[in-house]
């Protein structure tokens, strides 16, 4: 073999070696691609991660700040309501005429369902204040039946010895005048129960235990409650039929 032929043979061997290396590199590349097929999302996340987390921190910060601000504003408003309602309630108590007491109760009623408790409390405080509170409750009831009717019904049927019979009678009146048609069934059931008491002293004494004060509950009480239920039903039933 001549030198020239020997050099060609070496060259050929190197070229073959190069092709072999190239083939191995391609095979390695293919294997690498198989090993990480979905690395795109993670790459995106890794790329955008710092920005996204910054944005989230920013949004959460805003949300927390807004919630705290709103909560603080609500607290401030509640405190203002309490102060204003206290002044109006005092105005109801101290009024020297029925119209003045009524006017203060009407203002108190503007606070909606928040005013129910102070007004119910005033049903058990004398006569002028009682009538004013009754008017205030009717105003609340007629303006927001959905929220107030269940509360009124619970008060009228309360058996927890928290209210006098006169307060519960007034709540029945308020139910009627507020148009609480959802209470019709309840009133009818209550009337049946009352009718069953008659003038039996033992039954009356047992029935009276539901009130804060059982003294003074007699046949007249039962008749008065039945009359009030009848009046309420007279108002409510036509509303259902129409």
């Amino acid at each position, binding site marked *: 073999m001549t030198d020239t032929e020997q050099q060609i043979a070496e060259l050929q061997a190197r070229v073959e070696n190069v092709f072999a290396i190239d083939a191995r590199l391609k095979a390695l590349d293919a294997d690498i691609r198989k090993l990480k097929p979905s690395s795109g999302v993670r790459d995106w996340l890794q790329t955008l991660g710092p920005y996204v987390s910054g944005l989230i921190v920013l949004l959460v910060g805003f949300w927390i700040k807004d919630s705290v601000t709103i909560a603080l504003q609500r607290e401030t408003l509640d405190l203002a309501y309490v102060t204003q309602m206290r002044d109006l309630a005092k105005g109801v108590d101290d009024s*020297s*005429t*029925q119209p003045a007491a009524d006017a203060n109760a009407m203002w108190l009623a503007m606070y909606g369902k928040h005013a129910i408790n102070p007004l119910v409390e005033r049903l058990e405080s*004398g*006569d*002028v*204040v009682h009538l004013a509170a009754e008017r205030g409750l009717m105003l609340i009831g007629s303006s927001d039946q959905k929220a107030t009717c269940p509360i009124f019904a619970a008060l009228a049927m309360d058996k927890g010895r928290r209210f006098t019979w*006169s307060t519960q009678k007034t709540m029945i009146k308020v139910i009627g005048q507020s148009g609480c048609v959802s209470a019709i069934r309840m009133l009818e059931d209550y009337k049946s129960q009352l009718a069953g008491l008659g*003038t039996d002293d033992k039954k009356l004494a047992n029935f009276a235990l539901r009130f804060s004060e059982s003294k003074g509950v007699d046949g007249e009480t039962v008749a008065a409650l039945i009359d009030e239920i009848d009046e309420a039903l007279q108002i409510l039933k036509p509303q259902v039929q129409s």
Partner: protein
Amino acid sequence: MISIPGISIRAVRTVMSCWLLAICPMAHAALINCANLNLNPGDYKVVLDDFAFASLPAKNNADLAALKDRLQFSFNGQLEALKASAKKLNQNLQVPLRIVTCVGRQPSPSGDEFTDELAEHLSDERVVVEMWGTLDIKVVGTTTSPRAMIGYAMPPVQHYGAGETPAIHVLVYPKSGNAQSADELENLPELSAFALVGLGTKAARASHYDLAVWAFSRAEAGILDAKLGGSTAELDSLLAYVKHIACTTRARARTDQNYAGSLKLLPPQACEGAP
């Protein structure tokens, strides 16, 4: 609302209001709340409002101030006498009556504040009568004599009577101006009669027949006594109401199967003369 031929009670009350306002320049209406009403829920109540004075001299008059105190003492005595009288008649007949004083409460002389709503609530609170008034002094030469205008409201009668009889009476004392006028002013004989009418009306509604009939019979006697001092159409109407309701109460007692008292023994009686 009843009416006498040609004159309605409302018209009489309006004229009376104007007259009272003319002679009571100092008195002003202030129906403040009576917070004591809710106490003692088992008792029937006689509500005593603050007496007003018709003028500054009247307010500064020591005799009138003393009269005010004596009136309250007298009312307590009258109620105790009623309780004792009921007890004497029947050991089981309890008359739980008490005076409730409403300080600072001064209804208008004609009692216009006693609306049907207020009357219903007062009746629910077991008020049988509420009394208010204006005290004045009458000067004749060098002598002075007390006078008063007293209003009586009977909430049960206003609530349950449905206009059968006037439930508000305004009386002027002394009625006759004679020597007995001072006694009359201190005793106010109508108070117990009006209280008994209210009590009887409530007791009848509660089917407490014995108490109701006792109260009506005593009230009838009291109204007849009051008529001796000066009969009025309002007193006549009240007397007719009392007689009628007493009769219907006795009739109910006879037919009530839950009642077994002495009224069962009475013969049936037609209740005529309904107001």
